[in-house]
């Protein structure tokens, strides 16, 4: 979502002229950083994909598309994405409906549990699915005595990705269901439409863009996912995993780059499709303030169904996390269930570097993203800088690009002159920041929207200097949204695998790649222990930081 959309609110003179000029001096720097860390790696990657033997050529791409195996991989990727999009949206819509429109108990726990996957590494789902349903899985092998590999492949991936990503769609639809003006449905009722007609003529047409948006979002997440396809894919190879195998397994960089470009195409199409959809169907709000008092469905059958759905999904999620916890605290899950703390000890000793690096670089990245986000939001939405449309576009581009592609582009572009960053912390911070920037911009736009020009003027009018106004009025107002954005950046950074797998190094290692390599080696216990630590860390940040700041800043994230 680009910020230009909100530019209509109080423009330009947000800040007193003196402050505006000081900020304007930073504009070239921001533009340069975006050019170096967003535009350059992508151009470099595209260049590799269309070069052959030092000449411009489409041969690598053409060869790839002609190759039956690659075509199957592409087909696999698309059909997996489609399934996850449809199943996930359906599940999310039902869950959101139950939460908003059905009289149901324990909505708090259902909400919390549904959101838990949004803050855990997606790889965790693969791990617990393997522990439960794998060849030596607790349920498949332990309960039913099966020795099956049925989990590995299409259905295992669908399960893992739906569980990992439906919460994002749920969050989107929840706000949509809540925001739908209740008086529209009431009006339809008073004009003679029964419940079914109200649904088909009013509610669904109004919700359709949101449902489509949710499907596109899930499709995009599925395309970008790397951890689950690597661990659960089996013979069912998708593009992101194929890129990984080409680069890490065969060290075939041209092939990897070409595959990345092929993955990029549907992702970018999705991105623009989503934007177009949002624009075409965003209805200007009509009339005054609507009513959001939605009647709660009290039909016993509906209530029972809703409880079954939310309870069932929540149970599955609890089972996933409980399994990971069990895997982390038993000798060898599936074989020896004796209690042990050794995996945690190992995780805290051998993987201590990875843990500390993850925390440290995550914090740095969230601060950098917050500052960059504020600056870009200000320049794009509130200033008249030249080329701000381009700046906006480039800064938001990472939304469209799967993490694997960004990671690969970084690894390749910063491994040769003019800028060699391989093996440094900077390349990791840059990858984190670039990925989080679109979200940081969104938070910053929300923050800036808090700042009506009259506040600045009122403060000045009462005798405050520009500095006092900044310190006492403007900063306290933007802080909630900025802190919310920082928490989000941190969460996203420490849980991502795809964006960092190609840029980690012996000097700077991270937790998610460590989990992946432990899984590869068969150190399930240690992988589980690290996953648990990561989830606890993120929960502590999300719930602890707002409390430390004395107020619940999470309100700012949504607002």
């Amino acid at each position, binding site marked *: 979502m680009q910020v230009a959309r909100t530019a209509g609110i109080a423009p330009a003179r947000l800040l007193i002229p003196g402050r505006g000029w000081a900020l304007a001096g930073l504009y070239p720097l921001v533009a340069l950083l975006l050019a170096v860390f967003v535009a350059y790696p992508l151009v470099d990657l595209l260049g590799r994909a269309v070069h052959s033997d030092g000449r411009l050529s489409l041969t690598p791409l053409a060869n790839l598309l002609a190759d039956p195996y690659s075509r199957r991989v592409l087909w696999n990727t698309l059909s997996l994405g489609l399934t996850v999009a449809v199943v996930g949206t359906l599940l999310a819509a039902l869950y959101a409906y139950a939460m908003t429109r059905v009289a149901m108990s324990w909505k708090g726990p259902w909400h919390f549990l549904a959101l838990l996957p949004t803050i855990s590494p997606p790889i965790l789902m693969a791990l617990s699915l393997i522990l439960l349903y794998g060849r030596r899985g607790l349920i498949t092998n332990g309960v039913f005595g099966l020795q099956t590999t049925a989990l590995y492949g299409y259905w295992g991936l669908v399960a893992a990705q739906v569980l990992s990503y439906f919460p994002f769609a749920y969050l989107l639809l929840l706000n949509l269901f809540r925001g739908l*003006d209740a008086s529209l449905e009431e*009006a339809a009722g*008073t004009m003679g439409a029964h419940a079914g*007609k109200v649904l088909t*003529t009013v509610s669904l047409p109004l919700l359709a863009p949101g449902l489509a948006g949710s499907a596109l979002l899930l499709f995009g997440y599925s395309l970008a996912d790397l951890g689950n396809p690597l661990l659960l894919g089996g013979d069912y190879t998708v593009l992101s995993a194929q890129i990984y195998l080409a680069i890490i397994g065969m060290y075939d960089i041209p092939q990897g780059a070409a595959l990345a470009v092929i993955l990029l195409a549907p992702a970018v199409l999705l991105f623009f499709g989503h934007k177009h959809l949002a624009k075409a169907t965003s209805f200007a709000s009509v*009339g*005054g303030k609507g009513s959001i008092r939605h009647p709660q469905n009290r039909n016993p059958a509906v209530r029972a169904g809703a409880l079954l759905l939310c309870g069932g999904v929540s149970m599955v999620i609890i089972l996933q996390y409980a399994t990971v916890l069990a895997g982390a605290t038993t000798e060898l899950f599936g074989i020896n269930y004796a209690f042990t703390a050794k995996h945690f000890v190992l995780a805290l000793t051998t993987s201590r570097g990875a843990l500390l690096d993850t925390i440290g670089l995550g914090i740095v990245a969230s601060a950098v993203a917050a500052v960059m986000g504020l600056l870009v939001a200000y320049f794009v939405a509130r200033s008249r800088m030249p080329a701000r449309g381009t700046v906006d576009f480039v800064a938001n581009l990472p939304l469209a690009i799967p993490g694997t592609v960004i990671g690969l582009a970084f690894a390749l572009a910063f491994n040769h002159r003019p800028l060699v960053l391989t093996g440094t912390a900077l390349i990791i911070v840059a990858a984190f920041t670039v990925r989080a920037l679109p979200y940081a911009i969104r938070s910053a736009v929300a923050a800036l929207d808090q700042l009506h020009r009259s506040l600045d003027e009122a403060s000045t009018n009462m005798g405050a200097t520009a500095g006092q106004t900044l310190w006492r009025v403007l900063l306290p107002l933007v802080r909630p949204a900025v802190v919310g954005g920082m928490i989000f950046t941190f969460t996203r950074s420490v849980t991502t695998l795809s964006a960092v797998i190609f840029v980690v190094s012996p000097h700077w290692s991270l937790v998610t790649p460590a989990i992946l390599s432990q899984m590869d080696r068969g150190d399930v216990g240690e992988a589980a222990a690290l996953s648990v630590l990561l989830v606890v860390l993120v929960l502590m940040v999300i719930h602890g930081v707002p409390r430390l700041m004395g107020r619940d800043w999470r309100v700012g994230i949504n607002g």
Partner: protein
Amino acid sequence: MNNPTAKALEIRGLTKAYPLPGGRTVAAVRDFSLRIEPGEFVTLLGPSGCGKTTVLRTLAGLEEPDAGEILLEGRSIATLPPHRRRIGLVFQNYALFPHMTVFENVAYSFRIRRTPEAAVRQEVAAALKAVGLDEMGGRLPGQLSGGQQQRVALARAFVMKPDLLLFDEPLSSLDAKLRVQVRGELRRLQKRLGTTALYVTHDQVEAMSLSDRIAVMRDGQVAQIGTPEEVYSRPASLFVADFVGRVNALHGRVVSHSNGYATVDVLNHRIDVPMSHVVGTELLILARPEAVQLRKAAGDGPVGVVEELEYCGDEIAYRVRVGTVLVVAVESALRRTWNIAQGDCVGLHLMQKALHVLPADVQAPMSEREIPSDDSTSMEAA
């Protein structure tokens, strides 16, 4: 108002409470009864939270009453779902469907009932013409101004030819000038079609200009029902008097009576009111500001000092302190004859025909509550 198909509405003993967090409930409407004659336009007038919107929503079937009967032409509709009631509702925020054009919005009730398309076109075109929007059928609601949106909402409600039309503060989001204009259009439409109508507002001017009768509501009950003139000149309580306009509530005591007239001591002066009361009875004399006349030369009436003078364009309001009491008087700005300035000592004359008397135990006299402790400030009388 001579539509032979117009229906009478009768509400009997309507009660509705809402649950509060913590298990308690708050009564929004208590034992509310009202009868509206066929074709009549009645307004529920009251402050926010008095239950007027709850009554409306219960009639439309959007809320379920805890108790009570709703009869439309003698037939109970309380158990019918909203879409079977044939009751039109104009929402405060208009509730226009943003994804449908103006035409489709107005045609909605026909399409739901699968009316033949030719008839739909004719009816909708006529309805849009009636509200002056015949050119706007193809637009989306978001492309209209607030006043135009309001007209679409009116057309949409009128076009379904409901048995009863409900209005939930439909003019509250329009600016003052537009409000007066749309108000007139709304009243003309309702009169022409003769539909029975119930209107909810907290604006007394709106209520008086629109209604055949006004029901003033307080705390979920009817405080008084009557024609606008009855409610304004003969309010049943200080609350009603205060809500429908500015009023001076003066404390009085009966000192003697004869021939059906009681002589009352007000502002240390005696006036006669056409009422028999026992000597010593405490009374509340209600005098609208326009019933108080001021004279520069003190006559035989009460005497006070003009503390403040407010020029309002069409009239001038004077705040006069008489002892501990503040009295408000107004004079037409055009026929300004009093020639009074701030600080002048003036004589007051209460026009006896325009006074209204209430027993004093109804409520504490307002003007005593209104006396500001600090002389530098003065409050509105209403």
